[in-house]
C-alpha cells in the first residue's frame, strides 16, 4: 500500500499563493548593483572597436567592460554544456543578433539601461549565414573561424543502413516527406537572471541564479573563473518555469560574476523578454527528410531519416555528450520494425545557440513528430484508418523489454491498451462518422492521432554524461530525534512540485506523513552533487536516490528496533509503516520512536554508531520509457485558415504515479505546449538574421482561449528497474502532442489534397496549404 502517495496538495503553494515566493528578481542584497548587456544589432559582423568611456562617465555607472577586458581575466570565452566554447562578450566578431558585446554596472536598473546607449561599437558587417540548408555550400559565410570544420558541427548516424535499404527495396509501399520542425523557444514566464556576490576576503563566490542544474554549473564556474570549487556556492531560488531554458549557463551570469569580482559588490543581472527570446537557448530547428516502408497490408517494415540540424553560432546543446543529435535515434517510435537508420548533420549558422530545450527529452520530440507524421501519411497512402494502422504495428506487451533497431531497450509497456483507451474515450468511430457528415456539408473537421514512446531519466553513468560529469544524482536523508526528516536532493524544481512529490516518496518508505518530510534543493552548499532537472530525470534518477536513501534509513531503523525489542533483526518485519515483531504485530515501533532511540544512550548493535541518517547516489540502469496515445480533434475554417482545437484526449502511462494531481498538471502543460508549437510559436528570422520573434507580441503563446479542456486517461505499467516503478512525465505531452495537432489539421484538410503542412499552422499557413502553396515557416506572425 502506498499510503503517502496520492493527490496531496503541494507544499510549495503556501508561499507562492501569497506572493511570497523568492524568484531571482525578488532578491535584493545590501549594496547591490544592476548590470545590463549591450547586444549586437547585427547577425554577423567583425568588431572593429568597442568604446565604453562615455558609459563610464555616467554618474550612476560603477563599471563597464568589454570582451577585451574579460580576456585579460581569461573569461572572454566559456565552455558550453556540449563542450564547445561560446563568447561571454564578443572579442573578434559577433555571430548572431543579440550576442553579448559589453556589460555595464550601475546603481539602478534604469541607469544601467541608459548607459548602454552611451557605448560606441564600430561593426564591419559580414554576410550572414541564415539558411541552414546552405551552410555546407562552397562559399557559404564561415561562422566559426576558430574551429577546423567550417560550418559543419558533426555528422552522426545510428542504425543499420544496409538492412534498412534492403527492407525499403523489398517494400510494397514507400512514403517520404520533407518536414521542418521550426525553431521555438521555451519561454518560461520568468526570464534568466543572476546575482553574484564575491567575498574578496575569503575568496568565496555565491551565485544566485536561475539554474536547473546548480551542481553542474558550479563545476563549470570553477573551470571558467579559476576559483576552487569549494569556494563557489550556487543557489537556485524559486524558478518561474524553465523547460530547458535554465540548463545552460549564459554570458550574463559570467558578466555578473566578473562585475562582482571587480566591484566587490553584489551585482544583479536579469534579462528582459527580448533578450531571452533572442539569445537564450532555442529548441528544435530540425530540417528532416523521413521515409517509411511497409507492405501492402499495412505492416511497417523500416524507417529512415536524414536530418539537417541548425545549431546556431555555438554548439550549446544541453544533452549527454555521446549523443550529438540527442536521442533522435529513438525515431523508430512505438512500432515493430525490421530495420531503421538515421543520419544527422549539424551546422553552424548566424543565430542564437542552443537546440536542446523546451521539454524535448533530448530531441525525442522531433523524432516522435517525424514518425507520427509518416505513419499518418502511410495510412493515407494505403487507404487505412490511422488508428488501425497504428494498432496493427504497435509493440505487443509480451515483447518487453524490447530492443529497437537503433539500440534502445524499452523497459516496459502495454501500448495497445493505451491506444484502445484513448479511442474509447474519444468515441473514435462516432467522431469519424461526424467527420464524414460534416465533410458532406463542406465543414472541415480533423481527427489526429499520435502514439509516442519517450525515453527519460538520463542516465546510466557509463553511457551518459555532461562535460564528463556522469548523470548520477545524490540524496541525503536526515531523520531528527523526533522522527521528522529532511531530504536534500540535487535536482531543482521549476514548478513540478518536488517539495511535495519527494516528501511523499520518503514518507511512504518510512511510514511518515509527507508533512513530516521537508525537501531541500537548489543550494549547492546544502545538497549532494547531481546533474539537475531536465529530460524528465528528477523522479527517475533523483527520486530513485531518495527512495534508496530512505530504504537505507529503514534498514538502520530495523537494527535499532531489534535492539529495542531485544530480538534479532530477522525477527522483525516492515508492515504498515512500522517494524513489527513477526507473529506479534502489535509489538511495533515506528520511525519516530526508533529515531528517538537511535539518538538515545541505548546500546546499539554493531554497525549502527547512532542516528538513522543515510545517503545514496543513484546510477540508473536504463532510461525509463513512458508512453501515451493522444487524439486531437480540430475544426478548420477554410475561409480564414483558423484552427480551433475542439478536444484533446491524452492517455499517458508514466508507470506508478506518486502524486496524480501533479502528474496531470504536467500533462496539461505539455498539451498547451503542443498546441502552441503546432499552431503559433516559432522563432523566425529575416534573411539578414534579424529575429522577428523578439517579443510576446511576435512570439505567440497559447492563451486560455486556444487551449481546450483536456480529457486525460491513464494506464499504469510500472518500470521494472525504478525502485518504485515510476517513470518520468514532465515532457511526455510536449513530446507527443504536436504530431497529434498537425495530424488533425492535415486530416481536416484532406479534402483539399493536403498530405503535409509544416508548423506553425497559423491561419496564413493553413490558408496557403489549402491553396496548394508551400507553408512558410516565417509566416509565424499573422
Amino acid at each position, binding site marked *: 500500500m502506498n499510503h503517502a502517495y496520492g493527490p496531496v496538495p503541494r507544499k510549495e503553494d503556501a508561499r507562492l499563493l501569497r506572493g*511570497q515566493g523568492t524568484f531571482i528578481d525578488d532578491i535584493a542584497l545590501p549594496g547591490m548593483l544592476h548590470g545590463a548587456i549591450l547586444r549586437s544589432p547585427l547577425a554577423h559582423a567583425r568588431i572593429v572597436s568597442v568604446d565604453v568611456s562615455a558609459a563610464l562617465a555616467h554618474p550612476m555607472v560603477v563599471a563597464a567592460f568589454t570582451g577585451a577586458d574579460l580576456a585579460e581575466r581569461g573569461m572572454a570565452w566559456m565552455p558550453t554544456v556540449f563542450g564547445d566554447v561560446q563568447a561571454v562578450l564578443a572579442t573578434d566578431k559577433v555571430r548572431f543578433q543579440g550576442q553579448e558585446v559589453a556589460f555595464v554596472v550601475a546603481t539602478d536598473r534604469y541607469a544601467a539601461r541608459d548607459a548602454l546607449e552611451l557605448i560606441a561599437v564600430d561593426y564591419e558587417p559580414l554576410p550572414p549565414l541564415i539558411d541552414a540548408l546552405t551552410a555546407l555550400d562552397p562559399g557559404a559565410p564561415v561562422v566559426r573561424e576558430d574551429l577546423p570544420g567550417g560550418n559543419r558541427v558533426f555528422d552522426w548516424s545510428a542504425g543499420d543502413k544496409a538492412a534498412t535499404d534492403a527492407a525499403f527495396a523489398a517494400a510494397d509501399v514507400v512514403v517520404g516527406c520533407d518536414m521542418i520542425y521550426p525553431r521555438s523557444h521555451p519561454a518560461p514566464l520568468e526570464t534568466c537572471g543572476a546575482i553574484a556576490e564575491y567575498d574578496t576576503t575569503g575568496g568565496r563566490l555565491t551565485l544566485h541564479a536561475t539554474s536547473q542544474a546548480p551542481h553542474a554549473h558550479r563545476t563549470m564556474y570553477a573551470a571558467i573563473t579559476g576559483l576552487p570549487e569549494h569556494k563557489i556556492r550556487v543557489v537556485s531560488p524559486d524558478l518561474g518555469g524553465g523547460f530547458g531554458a535554465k540548463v545552460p549557463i549564459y554570458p550574463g551570469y559570467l558578466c555578473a560574476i566578473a562585475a562582482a569580482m571587480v566591484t566587490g559588490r553584489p551585482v544583479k543581472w536579469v534579462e528582459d523578454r527580448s533578450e531571452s527570446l533572442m539569445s537564450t537557448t532555442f529548441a528544435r530547428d530540425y530540417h528532416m527528410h523521413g521515409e517509411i516502408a511497409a507492405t501492402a497490408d499495412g505492416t511497417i517494415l523500416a524507417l529512415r531519416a536524414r536530418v539537417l540540424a541548425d545549431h546556431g553560432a555555438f554548439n550549446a546543446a544541453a544533452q549527454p555528450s555521446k549523443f550529438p543529435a540527442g536521442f533522435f535515434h529513438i525515431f523508430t517510435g512505438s512500432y515493430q520494425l525490421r530495420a531503421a537508420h538515421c543520419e544527422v548533420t549539424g551546422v553552424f549558422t548566424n543565430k542564437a545557440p542552443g537546440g536542446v530545450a523546451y521539454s524535448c527529452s533530448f530531441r525525442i520530440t522531433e523524432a516522435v513528430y517525424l514518425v507520427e507524421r509518416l505513419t499518418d501519411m502511410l495510412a493515407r497512402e494505403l487507404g487505412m484508418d490511422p488508428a488501425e494502422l497504428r494498432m496493427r504495428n504497435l509493440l505487443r506487451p509480451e515483447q518487453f523489454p524490447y530492443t529497437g533497431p537503433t539500440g534502445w531497450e524499452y523497459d516496459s509497456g502495454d501500448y495497445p491498451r493505451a491506444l*484502445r483507451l484513448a479511442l474509447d474515450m474519444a468515441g473514435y468511430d462516432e467522431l469519424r462518422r461526424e467527420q464524414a457528415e460534416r465533410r458532406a456539408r463542406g465543414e472541415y473537421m480533423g481527427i489526429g492521432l499520435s502514439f509516442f514512446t519517450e525515453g527519460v531519466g538520463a542516465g546510466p553513468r557509463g553511457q551518459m554524461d555532461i562535460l564528463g560529469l556522469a548523470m548520477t544524482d545524490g540524496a541525503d536523508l536526515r531523520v531528527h530525534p523526533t522522527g521528522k526528516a529532511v531530504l536534500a536532493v540535487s535536482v531543482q524544481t521549476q514548478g513540478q512540485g518536488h517539495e511535495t512529490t519527494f516528501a511523499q516518496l520518503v514518507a511512504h518508505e518510512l511510514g511518515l506523513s509527507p508533512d513530516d518530510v521537508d525537501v531541500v534543493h537548489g543550494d549547492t552548499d546544502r545538497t549532494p552533487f547531481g546533474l539537475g532537472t531536465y529530460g524528465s530525470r528528477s523522479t527517475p534518477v533523483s527520486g530513485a536516490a531518495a527512495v534508496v536513501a530512505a530504504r537505507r534509513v529503514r534498514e538502520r531503523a530495523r537494527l535499532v528496533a531489534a535492539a529495542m525489542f531485544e530480538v534479532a533483526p530477522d525477527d522483525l518485519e516492515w508492515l504498515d509503516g512500522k517494524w513489527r515483531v513477526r507473529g506479534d504485530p502489535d509489538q511495533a515501533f515506528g520511525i519516530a520512536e526508533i529515531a528517538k532511540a537511535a539518538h538515545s544512550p541505548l546500546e546499539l548493535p554493531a554497525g549502527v554508531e547512532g542516528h538513522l541518517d543515510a545517503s545514496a547516489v543513484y546510477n540508473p540502469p536504463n532510461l525509463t520509457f513512458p508512453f501515451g496515445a493522444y487524439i486531437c480533434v480540430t475544426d478548420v475554417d477554410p475561409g480564414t485558415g483558423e484552427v480551433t482545437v475542439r478536444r484533446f484526449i491524452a492517455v499517458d502511462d508514466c508507470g506508478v504515479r506518486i502524486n496524480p494531481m501533479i502528474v496531470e498538471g504536467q500533462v496539461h502543460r505539455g498539451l498547451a505546449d503542443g498546441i502552441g508549437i503546432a499552431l503559433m510559436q516559432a522563432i523566425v528570422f529575416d534573411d539578414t538574421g534579424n529575429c522577428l520573434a523578439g*517579443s510576446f*507580441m511576435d512570439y505567440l503563446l497559447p492563451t*486560455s482561449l486556444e487551449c481546450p*479542456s483536456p*480529457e486525460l486517461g491513464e494506464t499504469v505499467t510500472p518500470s521494472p528497474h525504478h525502485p518504485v516503478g515510476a517513470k518520468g512525465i514532465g515532457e511526455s505531452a510536449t513530446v507527443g502532442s504536436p504530431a497529434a495537432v498537425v495530424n488533425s489539421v492535415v486530416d481536416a484538410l484532406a479534402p483539399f489534397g493536403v498530405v503535409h503542412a509544416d508548423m506553425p499552422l497559423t491561419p496564413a499557413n493553413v490558408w496557403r496549404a489549402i491553396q496548394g502553396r508551400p507553408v512558410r515557416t516565417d509566416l509565424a506572425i499573422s
Partner: protein
Amino acid sequence: MKISVTVNGTDHQRDVEPRLLLIHFLRDELRLTGAHWGCDTSNCGACVVWLDETPVKSCTVLAVMADGHRVTTIEGLARGGVLDPVQDAFAACHGLQCGFCTPGMIMTARWLLDHNPDPSAAEIREAISGQVCRCTGYENIVRSVLRAAGHDGNDGNDGGASG
C-alpha cells in the same frame, strides 16, 4: 516627482522618476515582490495588480499615474492571515505550478468573481485571456476559479479515465 499611493491600505509617499513603472515601484521601492515582471509588452499579465478596483498590467502603468490612487497587490488579498477563497481554490485544484503567473491570475480571478459571482468556464477563460501561464495549460486555473465560485471545480468534463 512626488507621489502618494495607498498600497494594500498603507499610504506611501515617494519621490520617483517620472518614467518609473508601477511594477518597479511596487517591487523595488516598496519591496512588494508578489507581482512579477514578465514581458514588457502587456502580453503576459504576470504584473497584474488593481489600480483602485480595476486590474491593470503594472508594467505598462507609470508609478506617477497611481498618484492619489489605491493599489491592491497579491500581498493585500488575504485578510487577517486568512487566505481569499480564490487562493484556497488554486491550491485545492492545482491551479499553479511554478507560481510566477499566479499572483496576476488570482487578482484577475478575484475581480471577476466580485463582478460576476457565478461565471461559466467560458467567461473565466475570457477573463484570463490577456494573461499567460506556461505551466497549467489554464485548465486547472479555470477549475480553481469555478471552485472559488462555489462549483466543484470541473471544467465540463469528468476529469479522467483509466484502463
